């Protein structure tokens, strides 16, 4: 199976793209994914993968959930998420392995179950990866923020932007995309979004995250190497100019070696994600 020309389009996209079905090239692999088998596979392998976690939610807030509860979803009153499904589900793994072989890209996958309309799947946030979503069962409404410059992407001050929006101080409107069974949605890095079940029946979707190295990742790597301190979303921390001067004095200026180290860093991280899954909240 060849998928040439498919992923470059995704890389250059600035907006969500909704389709009634997955692209032709990958449709058989995606449509083979079944909710019930993922649940069974998770039960069979949950102790083998530290990052293959089960997390319960009610209206976006984390709540306790017992593994047994997800066997009887007809009685379940909370949403849940299974992370790193690619580690134990043969159907999902097949798709991820194919993309790795064809495109050299490492994918991670999470599955989301939302029992009914009142149990919001997740509230406003943005992710640091390109995402593809396939609606396995039911319906789900995805909302994105759109302002005069297009869809709102935010990395540095997500909370501030969202607070402004909630206080009606951000000139942005919600653009909604409704996914029904079999729908396929793609969206790029860091678009602010939320998702909600639309109906009374459970809504189930799976999201694939593409962990591609970006200029931002290079920036973070360079910052850590030069400044000698970690950079994990703490963009607003104050920092003295003397610290910068001292760090620059100590830098030897060999960019070839430096860039080689970055390439190795990406390979190490991708290998961790491929074999152990993507730890929650971990970026490249």
């Amino acid at each position, binding site marked *: 199976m060849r998928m040439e020309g498919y992923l470059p389009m995704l*890389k250059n996209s600035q907006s969500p793209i909704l389709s009634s079905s997955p692209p032709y090239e990958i449709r058989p692999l995606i449509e083979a994914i079944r909710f019930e088998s993922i649940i069974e596979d998770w039960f069979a392998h949950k102790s083998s993968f530290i990052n293959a976690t089960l997390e319960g939610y009610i209206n976006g*807030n984390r709540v306790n959930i017992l593994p047994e509860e997800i066997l009887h979803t007809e009685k379940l009153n909370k949403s849940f998420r299974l992370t790193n499904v690619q580690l134990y589900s043969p159907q999902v793994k097949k798709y991820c392995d194919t993309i790795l072989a064809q495109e050299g890209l490492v994918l991670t996958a999470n599955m989301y179950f939302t029992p009914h309309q009142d149990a919001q799947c997740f509230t406003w946030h943005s992710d640091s990866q*390109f995402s593809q979503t396939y609606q396995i069962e039911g319906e789900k409404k995805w909302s994105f923020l759109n302002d005069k410059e297009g869809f709102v*992407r935010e*990395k*540095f*001050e*997500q*909370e501030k932007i969202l*607070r402004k929006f909630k206080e009606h101080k951000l000139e942005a409107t919600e653009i909604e995309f409704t996914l029904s069974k079999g729908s396929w949605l793609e969206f*790029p*890095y*860091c678009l602010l979004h939320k998702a909600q079940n639309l109906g009374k029946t459970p809504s189930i979707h799976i999201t694939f995250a593409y962990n*591609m*190295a*970006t*200029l*931002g990742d*290079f*920036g*973070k790597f*360079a*910052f850590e190497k*030069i*400044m000698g301190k970690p*950079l*994990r*979303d*703490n*963009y*607003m*921390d*104050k*920092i*003295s*100019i003397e610290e*910068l*001067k001292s760090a*620059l*004095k100590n*830098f*030897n*200026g*060999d*960019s*070839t070696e430096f*860039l*080689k180290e*970055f*390439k190795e860093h*990406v390979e190490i991280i991708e290998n961790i994600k491929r074999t152990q899954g993507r730890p929650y*909240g971990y970026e490249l």
Partner: protein
Amino acid sequence: MKDLRDFKKQDILIEIEALHFPEIEAILFDDCLKLFPQGELKVTGVQNQLPEVKQFCRRVYAETGILLNCTLHLLPPLDSNDLNYRTHFQHRFVYQISGSSKWHFPLIDGIPYRESSNRAKLVSKLKLNDGQVLEKVLDSANALFIPYALSCTVSAETNTPCLFLTFAEEEINVRDILNFLMEDFFGIKDFEARFFEAFDQSEFLQQTQSPNVEASTIKVDDFYTKTKMAKFKHPQGK
């Protein structure tokens, strides 16, 4: 007046009761009220509107090199105690003009919670609201120094109109340094706009030139001055 630089160095919450701010003390309540547009409870850029504040900010800049942006706040009498904590990524200094305000600082392990974007993810807002709170009541003519990134909320303490000024100094942060390193050091133009751009690492390796450490070091002071001035003109908290 004690130097604001001392407060910044101490980097903790400081009540300032006995200090003398001659310019600010001369501000009249009625002059402040006139600044509020209809229905608004906040006025920004007060240093450009009240001569006394302008004089104070100029003196502070001349004596310490600190650029202050001033905002005037009016809280409705006995405002409901809204515990939506907010974080200002600035050093702030509050001066109470009339009435009393109560400042609430959530405590984590007995210490006022200081937010970085990173820690914000680890400590849920629920935990902040359920935990212990440090309260400071600010009466008329009293002042409070709130260090960078300390989370807090404020409510009116009396039935008289609660009017106070906040003076904020913008700081250089990790984001600014990251931009400097990428744009001036590695020559990646429009770095923030291209932050999410996926790229071919091998191609990038071949194209990127060695950074000029000496030239970049010389640029640091220029970067500092320009960034501070840009932030003063376009404050973060606005």
